[in-house]
């Protein structure tokens, strides 16, 4: 949204999961403990994100995308290394709250309750972000700055502050996601690595800077992968590479990438 392609979120995501291992330990958490872990994860990772923004990312907004990618990749390596020192390099597991470990029957299919919860939380946050962006002053400022930072400053917006807060918010959400995903995976410092490629694929297919594009693309990527797993198992894990290639061949800007700005300029 603000021209930041960010690899570092992968490691921030992992820190969220690692925080969950510390807060929850090896027991089956109660719901309040689990929510507490989610909040701690969001706050710890949010603050970490603010530090990363202030020390590194802030200096690079004016640089090109490649510099930003390399720098955030370096941050990824540093945070992963530091996490390994703090949490060790053996994978840990986190239990989900017992009440959520059963299955729920939806239209005759048995689905894990926890997965359904993740989908619901994801939807809630998607709606929340949409409202933040389109119904709040903060969102209005973000949209203005995303289009024209200097003009934003010229109407009196402290754009550095807005970008700082956006980065912190994005990091906090990554931390929260890390906690939520922790019970479903084996948690280690490099947990983010496998997700980062997928999220990049989603963002690139959706079009840089377009949140709607990302939403559509995430569904597209998910459904394609699921179909591949069902019908062409040998393609599983490759579908998003294929999708990226196809979409970029047909629409180099991605599905919805900044088309409107370009048309109006």
């Amino acid at each position, binding site marked *: 949204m603000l021209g930041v392609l960010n690899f570092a979120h992968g490691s921030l995501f992992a820190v969220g999961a690692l925080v969950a291992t510390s807060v929850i330990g090896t027991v089956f958490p109660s719901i309040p403990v689990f929510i507490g872990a989610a909040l701690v994860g969001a706050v710890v990772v949010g603050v970490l994100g603010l530090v990363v923004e202030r020390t590194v990312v802030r200096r690079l907004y004016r640089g090109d995308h490649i510099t930003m990618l390399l720098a955030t990749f370096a941050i990824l390596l540093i945070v992963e290394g530091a996490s390994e020192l703090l949490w060790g390099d053996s994978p840990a597991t986190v239990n989900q709250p017992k009440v959520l470990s059963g299955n729920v029957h939806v239209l005759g299919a048995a689905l894990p309750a926890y997965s359904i919860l993740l989908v619901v939380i994801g939807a809630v946050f998607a709606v929340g972000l949409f409202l933040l962006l389109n119904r709040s002053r903060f969102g*209005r400022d973000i949209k203005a700055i995303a289009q024209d930072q200097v003009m934003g400053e010229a109407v009196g917006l402290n754009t550095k502050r807005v970008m700082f807060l956006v980065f912190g918010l994005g990091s906090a959400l990554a931390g929260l996601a890390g906690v939520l995903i922790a019970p479903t995976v084996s948690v280690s410092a490099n947990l983010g690595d496998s997700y980062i490629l997928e999220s990049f694929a989603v963002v690139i297919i959706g079009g840089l800077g377009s949140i709607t594009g990302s939403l559509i693309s995430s569904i597209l990527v998910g459904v394609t992968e699921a179909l591949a797993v069902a019908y062409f198992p040998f393609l599983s894990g490759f579908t998003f590479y294929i999708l990226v290639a196809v979409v970029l061949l047909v629409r180099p800007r991605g599905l919805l990438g900044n088309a409107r700005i370009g048309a109006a300029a």
Partner: protein
Amino acid sequence: MTSTLTVTGLSASYGLASALKSIDLRVEKGRCVGLLGRNGAGKTTLLKSIVADPEITVRGDVAIDGRSLRKLATYKVARLGVAWVPDTRRIFTRLTVAENLDIARRRGVASDQLERVLEAVPLVRGLLKRAGYELSGGEQQAVTIARALMSAPDFLLLDEPTEGLSPLIVEQLQASIARLPEIFDLGVVVAEQNFRFVTDLADEVHVLETGEMVWSGTPELLVSDPDLVDRHLSVGEK
């Protein structure tokens, strides 16, 4: 009470490319100062230097009532009362017109500012619900001026406001701008290639040529000196 914007010995460059040399300028509240000059003379650069556009490196000083703006971030200059209408308008296309206006209203600006601005730039009233990307050139220009006024600025910098507008619209625009210094008690700087527009509006005119101020005086003096006009302003600027 802020009353005077002063530019002293200002030189400006884009990286290594120098664009302005030792410019002096003084703008008082309630007055309109015109900047004339050919394409590339440095008008835009001068206005950008005043608003502290980060693209430009400046030497010399810009100050309001002795308070230097030189080292300030762009947004701080804006908050100290300098509003800018850039040559390409730069409407926030993803926001509505109402949001484009509201975004510029700073804390402390009276809540009736919107009403005052809509009275001064009436065209904008009917556009409030429209999206920024739906506007025609003339509408964009009106919205950008209205946006600049929303911060209740002490100084308003207009960069080629007539560019790309039809003669009829230019006439309306001129009438609107002429009233601004008095209604809002602000100083206006208007950079233009449109000779008539500036000489009609301004109390005082400066002519720029290749980054230097080559003439300053009243519009009457300038109009009465065809030689001067021929020398410094290209043909077709009558």
